[in-house]
Every structure is written in structure tokens, then in C-alpha cells.
């Protein structure tokens, strides 16, 4: 039997345990809420976790597409990036899966050729980790960009209202020359 078949058979239990591990990374009371509130709008975080881990597992057992998994990973990391996590904690949920597979498939991994298959699968997970880290950085940068934008918009409007800004009009003669060319600027 191949590793993906075994994983496919154990999909439900792996998903359940993986969900629990991720939920446990939140403070007391939150894990049971994340798990038990099934309405996707009342519990958007729990729902996102569920969608994400399922998409990841589907890719590993060759049932889902990479694109879909990437989208969900990106979305889940977008959520983690604004929660109370350090960068490493924010993206560590994929490592949880690796550990879980080692624990759950301990016996199977002893079988001939299985460990090699596991290593291949592991490197696929590693690539997802890297992509997740890029998402994390993207969203943290976004937060700072939003901060700056809010600040700038406010300051700019005030200056504009106070007639302290100067705007070039489209028909301004200055635009007829190529002002970006330094040679033209005497």
C-alpha cells in the first residue's frame, strides 16, 4: 500500500486531530468555541481552519489542486497575521501536521519504501511552509501600509483643504517636455 492511500484512509482522524492541535494554539475557551460553533459566519476562524486543513490534505493525497490549497493557506495566514501570535507561531500549523503524521503512521512508516515516500511528502509540506511564511510577511507589511495610508490620507486632506498643496493640471506646459529627463532640466 502506498503512503497516500494510507493517509487517505486516515484522513478523517488526521483532520480531526490536526484541527484540535491548531485550536489548542488559542487561549482557554477559544478551542471549544472554534470546534463546536459550526456556523461559518458565527465562527469564521474555525471555518477557515477547517477549509484550509482539508485543502492541504487533499493536495497531499492527490485529490485537490495546489492552487486551492495555496488560496486557503494564504487566507488562514492572513487571519493568523492579525492574531496574537509570534511569527513562528503564526505559521507553525503545518509543522503540527508533520508531527501528527509521524505519530499516527508510526507503524506504517516502518514498512519498506514508506519512509522515502514520507520524505517526499514532507518536502511538499515544507514548500507550503515557505509559501505560508511569504503570506505572513505580506500581510504584516499590509498592516503597516494601511497604518501609513490612513495617516497620509488624513494629513493630505487637511493640507489640501487649507490650500497648501499644489497640483499640476493635465494641460500644464511642464508636461509637454519630458521633465523626467535630467538633460532637459537646465
Amino acid at each position, binding site marked *: 500500500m502506498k503512503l497516500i492511500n494510507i493517509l487517505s484512509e486516515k484522513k478523517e482522524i488526521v483532520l480531526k486531530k490536526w484541527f484540535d492541535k491548531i485550536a489548542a494554539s488559542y487561549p482557554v475557551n477559544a478551542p471549544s468555541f472554534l470546534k463546536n460553533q459550526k456556523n461559518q459566519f458565527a*465562527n469564521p476562524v474555525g471555518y477557515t481552519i477547517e477549509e484550509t486543513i482539508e485543502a492541504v490534505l487533499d493536495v497531499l493525497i492527490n485529490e485537490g489542486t495546489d492552487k486551492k490549497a495555496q488560496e486557503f493557506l494564504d487566507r488562514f495566514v492572513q487571519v493568523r497575521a492579525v492574531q496574537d501570535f509570534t511569527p513562528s507561531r503564526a505559521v507553525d500549523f503545518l509543522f503540527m501536521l508533520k508531527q501528527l503524521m509521524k505519530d499516527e503512521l508510526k507503524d506504517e512508516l516502518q514498512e519498506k519504501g514508506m519512509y522515502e515516500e514520507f520524505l517526499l511528502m514532507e518536502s511538499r509540506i515544507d514548500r507550503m511552509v515557505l509559501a505560508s511564511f511569504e503570506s505572513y510577511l505580506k500581510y504584516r507589511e499590509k498592516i503597516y501600509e494601511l497604518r501609513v495610508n490612513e495617516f497620509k490620507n488624513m494629513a493630505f486632506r487637511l493640507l489640501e483643504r487649507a490650500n497648501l498643496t499644489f497640483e499640476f493640471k493635465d494641460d500644464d506646459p511642464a508636461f509637454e517636455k519630458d521633465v523626467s529627463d535630467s538633460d532637459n532640466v537646465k
Partner: protein
Amino acid sequence: MPNESKSDELKQDELVKIDYKPPKKDWMDTPVHFRHGTYIYPAKAKNLTYLGLPNPREWSPADEDWKLPDNWKDIILNGMKERLDKYRSFKVFMDICVRCGACADKCHFFIGGGDPKNMPVLRAELIRSVYKGNFTAAGKILGRLNGARGLTKDVIKEWFYYFYQCTECRRCSVFCPYGIDTAEITMMGRELLTLLGCNVNWVIEPVANCYRTGNHLGIQPHALKDMFEMLLDDIQDRTGVKIEPTFNRKGAEILFVTPSADYFADPGIYTCMGYLMLFHELGLDYTWSTYASEGGNFGLFTSHEMIKRLNAKIYAEAKRLGVKWIIGGECGHMWRVMHQYMDTMNGPADFLEEPVSPITGTRFENAKSTKMVHITEFTADLIKNNKLKLDPGRNDKLRITFHDSCNPARAMGILEEPRYIIKNVCNNFFEMPENTIREQTFCCAGGAGLGTDEMMEIRMRGGMPRANAVKHVHDKHGVNRLTCMCAIDRATLSTLMEYWVPDVKVTGIHELVANALVMKGEKERVVDIRGEALKEKKGEDNVR
């Protein structure tokens, strides 16, 4: 960035060994950690001094020493006693919670972040535990067994952290079988903190400005008129209609008051242009005021005394100008103040008349006492009576959903009027899921003084449930505009969308009215009120 302490810099090998269980400490023993992005900068001493508020000083929540006055404990306990005697609701809310948990998972900050102290029941417990420990016999004897605790400096820090992570949105109260309103508890917590000078600048500066100049930004009368000139030029450019509104005009029938963000901030200005166009088209006998130039009242986020001081300006100006009644614009918390506090604090406004629409003759009996009518009530009545010529097709490139702003929805119950207007001025309207709208609407997470940039992380976290519902209608129906009727929303939702659903832009209701309104003497409308092409060019598909 999140906590950068050494122990958190984990190597990959170590990561797989982590025990993911959180600390099992009792919530009372988990001190707060002030990390950038999770707290608002403290009120500047000069602003507190201007308002005559106590204990002005330079300090930071991230400091170990908050430089509290020596008798801080007495100040808080006396302050609590005074308020328990004065506000019956406060005492009742302290006593009657049965910890049923119905409210626990209803707060957007808990839903988005999972911090248990953001569960409304626990937020209230932060103060209730001190109440029990100091004001009830059982608490004094049984202590922790009865959920009681003493008052320490850590408790003050905890209050500051969590009472400024509550947007006073009242979603939780909708689910409480006893009607406990955690927002009122937060308000009490903030009042008590204010006694120690522990307030936030994002609230106190607007309050000081408003007290001094009449609006949050400290805009003076001549500058305010300049701003309007720009809006009026834009209207003329885009519609061909020249409008000349009046300011501080004595003897006008109606005074119009709206939040200052409407005439200074994107995208509120387009809503403001909508008011100007609508009133012009009706030939309404109304005036703006450069003194009552702020509908918002950040006193609501400070103390009851401050609400009263700021709100009084509106009535004083109405009296000075000799108007008959008042129309209020698309603001959120202004309506909570009008609806729940104005009449008892500064009313009854006997010198005003019961509002009657001069266009339709409709008597606004609901405003009999405050004499102030919500603009959507006014406009919905006009549409109902066929008084407006509307071309909803002009909003066809927009696919619209509506966010019920917390205060108009929950504190006032205005649910139908905005929907009625929207459906009459545009053709593509899609509701978000039932448990995220109307009374159950999810907060923008930037109200009650949280809408500042240093709180960005918390805002994005708490706004996730709202954004998630918007994303749903965006994905399903191609929604590209989020309408709301609150100036704070217009600002904070814009940023929230940029993070979670960047294809969706934010709009006020009267911006949609401005687009659809067919005006006498207008030129052919080729651009919308933002100056953007009214129709998508052929072959271009804005609907994703």
C-alpha cells in the same frame, strides 16, 4: 510585530516538540502584555488639562510605571461607589449576571482573536470582580470563591487594555436574556479610568477640539466654508448644478448637523455632496452651522458628563439660530446619543417644534421629544411620497450590500429606512447572511474611539467577522460596494476592506442618492459623484 522575546525565536526542530496547550492559569492571574498594535496611545496632558480632566501627565501603557496618583485606589473605589448610587443600571448589571454564557461568543473581538477576556461576560467580570470584592458582603468574605478580587495596579492595566478593546457595539446585549449591556459596563470602566487620567488620545483630542471649535478636527468657520467650496465646485463639475447653501443662517426652518468627517474625509465627502444636492433639489429652508459642526460625540467614549457637555452645543445652536427642528446626517454614535441620552441630559427642547417634513407633510412623531430626525427617515419619506425623480440605473456598475452600523441598528432600530432608500436608488442589492446584519450586525471594530492607526492589528482582528460576511457576498454575487450610514464606518470599513476584501469599496447611502437623483437643470451625467465614469466602458467587466 508580535512579541519578539528570545524564547519565541524557535527553530524548526524545536517547533515540532512544542506543547500547544495554553497556560492553565486562572484568568485573574494572567497579566496583560502591552504590545504595539494592541493599545491606543494615551491622552496628551494638554488635552486633559484643556478639558479640566484629572491627572494629566506624560506616560505610556507599555511602561511599567503608569505614574498613577498616590491615592489611585481611593479614587477608583469612591468613583465606583458614586456611580453605583447614581446609575441604577450599573448596579443591576453588576448584580444580575448568571454567567449563562449566552453572550460569550458574540463579541467580534473574541470571535476574531480568541482572547477569553474579550468574551463580554469576562469583560464585565473585570469590573464585577472588584465590585464583589469591595461592595458585597459575600465577596468580602468568600473572596475568589465568589469571583471577587482586590484592586491592584494590574487590574487598572487590565481595564485599560480590555475596555479599549470593546467598541461599545452592544452586539452581546442582543443575546443576553437579562438585557445586560456590556457596552454600558465598558463606559463605566472608561469613566473610572478617566478619573486616573488614563484615557486615550484618539478620544480625548477630538473631545477637546469639539469643545473648543465645535468639531473633532478643530476646523474653524472660515476653513469649514473653504472645504464646502471645494465640494460645491465638484458637484457643479459633475452635474452642472450650482448650489449655494447657507451657514449660520438665523430663521431657517431646519438645522442640519452631520459628523465632520463627512465634509473632510474620503469617502464621506461624497455622502455630504449627496445631502447638499438633495436639499438643493427640494429647495429646503435649512442651514448648516459652523459651530454645531460635529454630529459625532466622543464624549460617549469618555464619560456621561462629557456627552452632555458636547451634546448641549447642538441645542444651543438650534436655539441661537431660531430653527424649528433638526435633521441629522449619516452618523452612528450620534444617534445613540440622540436617542438614549439627549432628552434626559439636555432636553426637553421645548423651544423647538415637532418635526414635520415641509415637502410631504409627514409628522415625525418618533422625534417628538428630541426634535431631531434621521436623514434616512427624511429621505425614505420623500421617496415613499414620490417627491424625488430617481434614475437607479446610474448606480448600475455598483453591486451593493449594506452594513447595519451598530448604533443606528441596535440603539435606534433604524433597519428598514436605509434598505428602502438603497432599493430605490440602485438595481443590484444583495444582503449579507442573516446572522451578520440588522440587530445581529457585526461591528466594524473601529468604533468607540478604536479607529486609530496604532490599533490596526486589533481592528483587523475584530473586524474579521464583518469582513468575512462581505467576502461571502463578494464571492457569491460580485458585490463591489459596501454601504453604511456612519462616518466612523466609512473610514474604518474602508481600511478593513483593503485588508480582507480589497475589491470592495465603501459608500454612504446619500452618495447613492446623489448618483441617482435627477436634478432640475442638470447636464447629461457621464460621471458619478466621485468623478468616475458612470458606465463601464464596453467590454470592460467590473463584476468579478
